[in-house]
């Protein structure tokens, strides 16, 4: 883990007087260069991103009909293929950037006075909107990782959280200061209840949490389909399979819609940051986190020290489920407050696994990778159809593939092995 790997660099040898005299001092550039060519976890992450974008570029080129056609006469006029490929890749990644961070056309318009400041923020707002549920599901998977558990069930937990928040969101008539928190908590409780099941099963019967939680995903998804059809949940105004909308008093307020109504980012993002900080605090400062980490690293030593392994599994999975449930609440009370469908959950729960892997199960890393994945999703959505919308999923998958196989990155780029060896992901649940 990051808090234990980079430990004893400098003090190992006292700064020895120059033995040769001619030996230059280890200046910054040399140290930095050495760092760049080493397969440490930071550089592996950076190189994984770069390699993924490189592979994405190749796939963009071969999947674009026009560019592909220039390769058909590559040997008679190679520059066509080169320019076409270059232009395609640059344009594609530019439009991803424009959809995720800043649209240059809007910037021009804004400078010329033809666009409001709010328009300028829309790509960012979309990125943050899509990142929000990923923060929660990433934390749900990451927290479980730290206890040595592989929580594949974040998808089902998110769906349960969505339903819990929805039911409280439309069925109670309360003032907003009470209704909204209650609905959010209901999401956490519902997700936590589903998350507790694999934890309890593992603690009492030894059932593997991967198996039980993946099965619960199916149960949750089908339960949602059934529940949406019941009169209790089903919309009163639409005959499609869509739920009732949540009351205004349970809807997460948007943060920036006063600037521009299309800025959808809402309070759930702030809650996500706060929860990430809380999880960080829990893991690194609390006795509960101490126990989770000890059990995750070495359950035998933890048991010998008097920690109860079974109850740690149960509480951790419950907490993880609650985190994913909060993600569900963020959807049901946020962008989907008009009513949830069977499709609202998308694959946020499964993406949580890749977010947690990329973030190396650290809350800070999880937030960062959720933002990255949110940006990819927002960018791809806006850049279509010129850029295939699947590029975001493809890039995510490729990034995590490289992260999960640091030896591959090391071999491709001929990096040096760092002190202490390659850092592989600690999915000890398997």
């Amino acid at each position, binding site marked *: 883990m990051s808090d234990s790997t980079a430990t004893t660099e400098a003090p190992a040898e006292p700064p020895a007087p120059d033995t040769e005299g001619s030996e230059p001092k280890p200046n910054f550039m040399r140290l930095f260069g050495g760092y760049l060519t080493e397969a440490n976890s930071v550089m592996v992450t950076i190189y994984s991103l770069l390699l993924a974008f490189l592979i994405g570029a190749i796939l963009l080129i*071969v999947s674009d009909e026009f560019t592909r056609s220039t390769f058909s006469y590559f040997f008679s006029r190679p520059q066509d293929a080169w320019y076409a490929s270059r232009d395609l890749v640059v344009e594609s990644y530019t439009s991803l950037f424009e959809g995720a961070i800043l649209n240059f056309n809007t910037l021009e318009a804004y400078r010329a006075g033809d666009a409001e400041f709010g328009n300028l923020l829309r790509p960012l707002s979309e990125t943050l909107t899509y990142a929000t549920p990923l923060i929660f599901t990433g934390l749900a998977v990451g927290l479980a990782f730290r206890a040595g558990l592989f929580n594949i069930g974040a998808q089902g937990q998110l769906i349960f959280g969505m339903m819990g928040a929805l039911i409280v969101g439309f069925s109670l008539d309360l003032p907003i200061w009470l209704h909204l928190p209650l609905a959010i908590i209901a999401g956490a409780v519902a997700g936590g209840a589903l998350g507790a099941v694999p934890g309890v099963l593992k603690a009492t019967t030894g059932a593997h949490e991967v198996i039980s939680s993946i099965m619960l995903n199916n149960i949750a998804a089908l339960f949602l389909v059934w529940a949406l059809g019941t009169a209790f949940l089903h919309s009163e105004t639409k005959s499609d399979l869509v739920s009732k909308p949540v009351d205004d008093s349970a809807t997460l307020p948007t943060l920036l819609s006063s600037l521009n109504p299309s800025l*959808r980012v809402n309070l759930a993002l702030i809650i996500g940051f706060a929860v990430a900080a809380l999880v960080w605090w829990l893991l690194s400062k609390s006795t509960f986190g101490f126990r989770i980490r000890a059990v995750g690293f070495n359950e035998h030593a933890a048991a010998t020290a008097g920690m109860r392994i079974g109850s740690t599994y149960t509480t951790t999975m419950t907490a993880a489920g609650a985190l994913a449930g909060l993600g569900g609440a963020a959807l049901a009370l946020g962008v989907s407050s008009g009513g949830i*469908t069977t499709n609202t959950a998308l694959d946020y729960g499964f993406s949580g696994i890749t977010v947690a892997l990329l973030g190396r199960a650290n809350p800070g890393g999880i937030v960062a990778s959720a933002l990255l994945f949110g940006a990819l999703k927002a960018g791809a959505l806006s850049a279509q159809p010129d850029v295939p919308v699947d590029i975001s999923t493809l890039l995510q998958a490729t990034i995590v593939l490289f992260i999960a196989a640091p030896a591959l990155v090391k071999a491709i780029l001929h990096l040096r092995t760092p002190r202490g060896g390659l850092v592989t992901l600690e999915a000890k649940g398997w």
Partner: protein
Amino acid sequence: MAVKPFKLALAGISAVGLAALAACGDAPSDSNGGDNADASFTACMVTDSGGIDDKSFNESAWAGMEAAKAENDDIEVTYKESSNTDDYDPNLQSSVDDGCNFIVGVGGLMAANVTTAAQANTGVGFAIVDGTPSDAEGAPVETENVFSIQFDTAQSAFLAGYVAASQTQTGTVATWGGMQIPPVTIFMDGFAAGIEQHNTDKGTDVKLLGWDAAAQTGTFLNSFEDAAAGKSTSDTFISQGADILFPVAGPAGIGALTAAEEAGDAVNAIWVDTDGFESTDYGSKLITSAEKGLSNAVRDAVLAAYDGEAGNGTYVGTLENEGVSIAPFHDFDAAVSDETKAELEALTAAIIDGSLVVESPASPAAS
């Protein structure tokens, strides 16, 4: 969702292989491509979930967009895919930002989103497929710039039901849906009404499995893709005596056709949306199809918008305007008696002149 990057990658890999084979070709002379690159009018489409190539709804609508472009080279078309309802707003917004002149929202679930976008962007034309302008609560909204495209598929399904009742040997036919949503249940309602008509007119007692029109309950896969589930559902109905199947489930409906084929000559099927004799590999098992002219309707809407005539108009596909129809009987032409064919023509005329009304709770609001 998860399959698609793989598809993209696969396409890429095979393309590399082909390109390598062909890389020795001659360079073309410099010329502009055939695209309507300088078109002055851009029509954009925002899909429902399922993607542009869903072999169903979105794909048919997109075919209509391309048909419009083919007809008028001053029209450029493009699309944005939505992965779920949360993508509607950003996709509509970025279509507006991209400078689209006419934006077609595919799917009734998008009605409120399209309406809101239309109210905020009065300079842009919009259309909703299978829906009418409404607010988030579903209440109708008056707009100046939302064109509504709907289909009274109950009418074509009614005829299909009548044919089914006339053709069944066992006296039992079956239907099942992909999901319990209006564009699906309207077919089932019409089908049920057609059977009922036959029972009344001809004194038969044909039973329908899989849909209770009065209670609005029935059998649904909750999937438009799972053909295996469609087959097992169909097998169940066949074992209960059904000899004609009416799957209203897009690609999942193929399961009914494979089940019918396995069951032998005695079991046949009726397709929906398109003429299944053309669009599936099971033409010999299809008595007819309850067609819905989505492509043509979208094409006409785009062309009308180009001419500035779309506005807040409404199009409802009916038997009268041939927006819905039943397909030819093809292989079953001889099996369907001339008597039945004559009755179908009479029923069609009755529906067109309004003396016969096929009702469904999912029917488009009267225009």
